[in-house]
């Protein structure tokens, strides 16, 4: 039986080759195995000038009474700044923007901020809209990984955003 099959194969060698070639071609087309070790590198320039553009490095979404997003940018000269985007905070006076440690602050733990380690970035410029705040060069954002909007007078956290690296 075995020798029969073998002799059938040897008698139909051409047929075998004719069948296996399209199968192999189809397999190659589907998997393109050579692409495993051939890289295709491109290097397109931006279609517009991006020199001097700040680089976003951290971002976070506010929760609590505040809505909107905060993004930390790094300028080409190394200077960092914080930008609040689409901020919504209904009329609150004496609010400050501060950097804090995310484990220590959340709007749910309103009073907790009093003992928390934080860096004050200054009074909130406006409750609505987009605004920027400068960051000191020594502000370590891996340590202070949250931005809070904090009411100094009533010691309440109005909103906080945990920063995530881009």
């Amino acid at each position, binding site marked *: 039986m075995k020798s029969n099959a073998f002799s059938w194969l040897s008698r139909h060698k051409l047929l075998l080759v004719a069948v296996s070639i399209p199968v192999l071609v189809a397999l190659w087309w589907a998997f393109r195995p050579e692409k495993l070790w051939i*890289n*295709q*590198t491109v*290097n*397109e320039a931006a279609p*517009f000038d991006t020199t001097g553009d700040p680089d*976003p490095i951290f971002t976070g979404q506010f929760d609590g009474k505040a809505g909107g997003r905060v*993004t930390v940018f790094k300028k080409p000269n190394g200077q960092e700044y914080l930008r609040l*985007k689409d901020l919504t905070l209904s009329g609150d006076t004496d609010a400050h923007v501060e950097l804090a440690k995310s484990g220590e602050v959340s709007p749910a733990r309103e009073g907790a901020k009093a003992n928390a380690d934080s860096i004050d970035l200054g009074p909130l410029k406006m409750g609505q809209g987009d605004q920027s705040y400068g960051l000191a060069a020594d502000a370590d954002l891996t340590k202070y990984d949250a931005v809070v909007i904090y009411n100094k007078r009533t010691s309440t956290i109005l909103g906080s955003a945990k920063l995530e690296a881009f």
Partner: protein
Amino acid sequence: MFAKIQTGFALAVLLSCTGFEYASAAEKAQAVEAGAFHGKVHKTSGRATIYKEADGKLVLRLTNFKTSNGPDVHVILIAAKDADDDANFLKNSTDKLELGSLKGNEGDQNYDIPDGTDLDKFQTVSIYCERFNANFGAAPLKKL
């Protein structure tokens, strides 16, 4: 002779002025959204940034980009917050928006985004292998 020099000078001034104007218009491209790639089926890294040009045209730019080379790989936008796993956008009827074939598996590259694309709806860039219905990697976009 003097008049010729004068007109030449005037022309040069005019040209440089229009040149400056053109340059400043070109600089007005604003980064509106950005996100970092994370790998799924294949290791993928780099950043995706969407720019809005002065005329409102949207451009997706990949920088420091790296993924695996593969067959029939496309850059698409998907109507989801992120592509968590294959099932997330392959089995659900998630809307996809084709931006074109991946130009290269390494390096910086640009893709035009069709006019009128709703970026509030399409929130994630995916490197998508059409042949095997696989998500090589994805970048969830965040507003800047």
